[in-house]
């Protein structure tokens, strides 16, 4: 024992002083924090682009940006939000929470963990920096469909390389997370006794490893079509642009579940804590998560109902897509059943969780509408789709990220955040979110296409409501930044178990969690 301890301390350097430590750190908490800050910065960068888009759409006609720049903004907004804001936030949670939740001393590969993070800034520089090169950023839409992406300029190559680098980061991160979960759990923590968040990340990491390489292959083919004379996506040479769509969406649909499964995990911790009841139907939650993941591989065609697939293909993808609503429904049912007869209090994390359950469900329903092939043929590429995916991504993924931040900030900083400000932030966010995105359903149903800077005058009112909501929503997020900074700098001291109803190993260590935790595995009952 003596020897082991001396040995451990050789390698476990204590938190070195200075900002420079972040370049070399091998500590999961440092790396988790870097991911979170990176994500927050990219959230504001992407948010700024969104506000320019909404400002342009405030009136019909072209006012602020020319159509080219408009396309570039929608493209990079989406890529920044998906790869820069949502995914890194969840990896940040994984870094901070998984070792604490399974009782591991750190991630399985602490050094590689830091590489996963440090690949993100260069990728972001390539992506955002592409606005500055001749021709401006990529304007093909985040889906990078050929032939537009083949005709694009320098920035498309930069985007492709950014995707490669972010893919490498995701794959390394996922291998690290899977290995940590499978190999470093505290003795006694069997798979079916793992916290839900850990389960959802185990499955997410599997999805990432399965589909990020496919995306890498797809963009590599774009690159060779652009520069090296291949004809993957060119009918003249026997290829086919829809081939890209198939490969892309084979990645793309699992990708949207990559952005929601960890959110399900976070919500499954917050609701039991503030309902003061264990999660209802734990096992069914696990199986639902796994079935969502498996089904997500066979529904990609619902993004392509209008490209002329054979009827049998359209029908298959329609039914398969609808099937996903079943396990998703199981989850929503379980969350509501957890609330049933609980002694509920409404702290900010709980508000976000309840907001998540209600609003994400609306997004699920509009997804079901879109899953119906004949309906989708009229709704495809309209604002209805934009409304759908913002309900699942903003009031889904982002709400869970914010709720999770309020929930675990006491553990990370050692202070309670300002509850009043937190609540104000929630209500501002929830209300302005709905002002922004609910009218977009009507716009889409009325036929307004997405990704077009101009529109027919009859769409004006709903667009103006949406734009006003968007500015409210955007500026409300500055309040979040303020609350986080305030919480880091001080506040009521948080106890080890910051929430009365909280369960799990992370609440057994002091708040703030010391630099090194669980250097020897804890006992788990």
């Amino acid at each position: 024992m003596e020897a082991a301890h001396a040995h451990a301390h050789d390698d476990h350097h204590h938190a070195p002083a200075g900002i420079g430590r972040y370049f070399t750190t091998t500590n999961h908490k440092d790396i988790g924090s870097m991911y979170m800050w990176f994500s927050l910065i990219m959230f504001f960068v992407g948010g700024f682009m969104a506000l320019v888009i909404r400002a342009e759409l405030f009136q019909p006609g072209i006012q602020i940006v020319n159509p080219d720049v408009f396309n570039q903004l929608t493209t990079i907004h989406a890529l920044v939000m998906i790869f820069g804001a949502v995914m890194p936030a969840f990896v940040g949670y994984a870094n901070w929470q998984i070792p604490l939740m399974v009782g591991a001393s750190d991630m399985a590969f602490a050094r590689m963990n830091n590489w996963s993070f440090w690949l993100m800034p260069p990728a972001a520089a390539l992506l955002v920096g592409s606005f500055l090169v001749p021709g401006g950023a990529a304007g093909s839409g985040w889906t990078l469909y050929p032939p537009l992406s083949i005709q694009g300029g320098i920035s498309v190559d930069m985007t492709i390389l950014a995707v490669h680098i972010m893919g490498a980061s995701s794959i390394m991160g996922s291998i690290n997370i899977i290995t940590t979960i499978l190999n470093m759990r505290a003795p006694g923590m069997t798979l079916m006794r793992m916290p839900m968040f850990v389960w959802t990340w185990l499955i997410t990491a599997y999805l990432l490893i399965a589909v990020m390489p496919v995306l890498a292959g797809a963009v590599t083919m774009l690159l060779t079509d652009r520069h090296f004379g291949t004809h993957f996506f060119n009918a003249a040479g026997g290829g086919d642009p829809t081939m890209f769509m198939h490969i892309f969406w084979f990645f793309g649909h699992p990708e949207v579940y990559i952005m929601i499964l960890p959110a399900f995990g976070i919500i499954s911790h917050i609701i039991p804590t503030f309902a003061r009841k264990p999660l209802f139907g734990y096992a069914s939650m696990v199986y639902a998560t796994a079935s969502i993941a498996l089904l997500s591989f066979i529904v990609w065609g619902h993004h392509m109902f209008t490209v002329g697939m054979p009827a049998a293909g359209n029908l298959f993808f329609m039914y398969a897509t609808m099937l996903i609503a079943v396990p998703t429904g199981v989850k929503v049912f379980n969350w509501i059943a957890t609330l049933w007869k609980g002694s509920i209090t409404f702290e900010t994390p709980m508000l976000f969780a309840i907001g998540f359950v209600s609003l994400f469900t609306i997004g699920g329903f509009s997804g079901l509408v879109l899953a119906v092939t004949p309906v989708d043929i009229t709704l495809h590429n309209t604002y209805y789709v934009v409304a759908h995916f913002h309900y699942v991504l903003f009031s889904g993924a982002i709400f869970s990220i914010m709720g999770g931040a309020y929930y675990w900030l006491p553990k990370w900083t050692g202070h309670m955040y300002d509850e009043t400000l937190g609540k104000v932030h929630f209500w501002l966010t929830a209300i302005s979110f709905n002002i922004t995105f609910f009218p977009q359903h009507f716009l889409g149903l009325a036929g307004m296409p997405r990704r077009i800077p101009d529109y027919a005058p009859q769409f004006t009112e709903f667009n103006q409501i949406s734009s006003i909501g968007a500015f409210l929503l955007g500026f409300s997020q500055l309040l979040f930044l303020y609350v986080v900074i305030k919480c880091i700098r001080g506040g009521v001291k948080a106890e080890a178990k910051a929430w009365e109803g909280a369960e799990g190993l992370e609440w057994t260590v002091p708040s703030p969690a010391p630099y090194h935790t669980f250097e020897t595995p804890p006992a788990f009952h």
Partner: protein
Amino acid sequence: MSSSSTHDVYYVPAPSKWPVVGSTALFLLAIGFVSLLHFGKTQAYVLLAAGFATLTYMLFGWFGNVISESESGKYNAQVDASFRWSMGWFIFSEVMFFAAFFGALFYARQMSVPLLGDVDNQLLWPGFKPDWPSMGPYNATEFHPMSAWGLPAINTMLLLTSGVTVTWAHWAIKKNDRTQLVLGLAATVALGLIFLFCQMTEYGEAAFSLATGVYGATFFMLTGFHGFHVSLGTLMLIVILARSLKGHFTPEHHFAFEAVSWYWHFVDVVWLGLFVFVYWL
């Protein structure tokens, strides 16, 4: 903590500069590549050279650290298990990368080429025969696809044999028979190099190119990425051979060896897929 073992603590490495060095390398390579495609060549070569140099520095430094940690016994059984899981998942990710290109091949053969020959497209491309191999309707000329029964068949034998020799080396390491270990590894390296040589010869003799429609694209991208993986695998085998000569590894602890042999078998299996679907059928 039970005091029965001194190996209970999971090894967490000290802070390390390698990740940031590696990111710098990839960033230099990325902007160098973009320059090569769009801007001045000289500046591109400087950036690419700097990128490769930094990458090499990082690879030597990082793997050097890992090797010395391993040899000084810092990796307990749990760390070893982590390496096993991670190598398995890494190979799975590589499988999915190849799956994208195989997907493209199957899609081209089953969907895009036949569709170009259907009734609608007869107006657009009259007389186009949608047979595989195809270079598409525009500019269609006669070309000779690669036959399976020349070099490719020999290459199949080479790789299958190398699978046997690497297993022979594994058997030797477990028996602590260093001579046979080195012989087995050297034979595997040699077979890998001969394979690569044959592949280069085949490319030299090919009567079509990357630009020969979707056939040329799928042929060269699939075999090209495979060849790249064989090159990496061979390099890794050479490192393992050098380490064996230096006396690294024990009959119980030799996961680096096993990881490379898993990788080698994976490259082997991909080749079988290529042989059947790219060359033969």
